[in-house]
């Protein structure tokens, strides 16, 4: 009966510490564009034991204006498709694009957008239309000419996507397979998406984690005192 208090309190303390780790991951990514919060949610199973699970929040962050014509934001559900260096496919909402040395539109970390959208060298202006079409004007008086289209896909359960580093995500069994969004109308040029982290919510999570940790440790201390008094019962 009494061992249980110590066990439960130490389990709770380590769990809260683990939760603090996940909270800090969210906190440091406050200024990562299009970062999606992953909450470490605790719940009780039937036997009253603490269990934890990661619950991704796939909601949209705020849209910030930018001056760079290669900054594109998805003002709605969906992900850009990128091709990694090893040829595999990954997905991202981080729309800060660059043109790489071979003339292809790519992410900041060098993954090619879609299956390759080649941008001519001497263009006058680049346009991203709301449906994802990439148009170009070679000279000011020219008509717009399409050079490619941004493919937007969405997942049945985007909260369960797995982080693949470099602000990329890959599908898992729980998230379902990617499905193309037909005719999106919410692709925005000259904009970036901020992370969807709520600063105040995160701070309150830290405070609650801390208080739970401290009271668990206090319980261990009390239990220890009672152990000692029980051992020295003859005095």
């Amino acid at each position, binding site marked *: 009966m009494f061992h249980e208090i110590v066990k439960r309190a130490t389990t*709770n303390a380590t769990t809260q510490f683990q939760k603090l780790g996940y909270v800090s991951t969210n906190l440091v990514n406050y200024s990562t564009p299009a970062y999606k919060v992953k909450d470490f949610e605790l719940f009780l199973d039937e036997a009253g034991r603490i269990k934890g699970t990661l619950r991704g929040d796939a909601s949209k962050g705020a849209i910030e204006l930018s001056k760079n014509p290669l900054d594109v934001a998805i003002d*709605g559900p969906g992900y850009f498709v990128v091709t990694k260096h090893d040829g595999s496919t990954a997905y991202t909402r981080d729309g800060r694009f660059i043109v790489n040395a071979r003339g292809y539109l790519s992410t900041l970390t060098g993954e090619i957008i879609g299956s390759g959208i080649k941008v001519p060298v001497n263009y006058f202006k680049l346009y991203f239309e709301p449906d994802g079409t990439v148009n170009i004007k070679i000279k000011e008086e020219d008509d717009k000419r399409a050079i490619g289209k941004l493919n937007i896909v969405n997942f049945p*359960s985007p909260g369960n996507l797995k982080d693949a580093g470099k602000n990329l995500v890959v599908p898992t069994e729980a998230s379902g397979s990617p499905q193309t969004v037909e005719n999106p109308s919410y692709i925005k040029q000259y904009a970036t998406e901020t992370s969807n982290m709520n600063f105040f919510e995160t701070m309150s999570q830290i405070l609650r984690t801390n208080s739970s940790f401290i009271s668990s440790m206090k319980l261990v201390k009390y239990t220890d*005192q009672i152990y000692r*008094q*029980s051992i020295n019962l003859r005095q």
Partner: protein
Amino acid sequence: MKLHGGISIADDGLNISVRGMHTQMKMMDIISRNITNFSMPGAQREIPIMTSFCEYIGSHGVNTIKDTQPGRMRQTGNPLDFIINHSGYFQIKGQHGVKLTRDGRFEIDKDGYLINLNKEKVLGSDGEPIQFHYIPGNLKDITLDEDGTINLYNKSYNRKEFVGRLSVASEDGTPVQDVKVIQGFVEDGNINLMNETFALLPLRRNFEASRQSFIILNEQTNKLIQMLGRGQ
């Protein structure tokens, strides 16, 4: 306790003080459970109750009752976080039958079922798991009426489509009539950490009092036996 030669010593006090110490430990165990469950969404406080005859049956006489008051609500803005604004429970389809919970943090899985964090399906008032006909692209399109009806806004037809109705049951499994469910909130449980920590203090003092009386009685018995041994 009967000594050789027919002299009996009243040692009830020794036993009772040991039982007292056990009882305080048991009550501390219940409070430790409350402290661990603090801020656990949907957790309900267990109140330790000391029944009569605790002096005879020790820690077996400690009982608990559940505090079924609704806990603190915290706004999260997540359209799939629900709370019940009165006593009652959501029904979950578990492996071994229907389970009750007040933890209303739900998700949608890839087949469109409404599931809880333990990946178990949430039951509707018709007894079937609630399933979305198609996966909403934007979770904000999901709306909840106060009576527990979940609707999904369909942009192409500009109308709300019925998805299902959350089932709210009382402790014995019967459906609650006037349901009031609110969207976008999480219930943080009705445990007050301060009260629990304060409740630990008298338990410790009681433990020490029982311990002191054990020590005093022990010394007296000791003395008595020594005096008897000297034949005075």
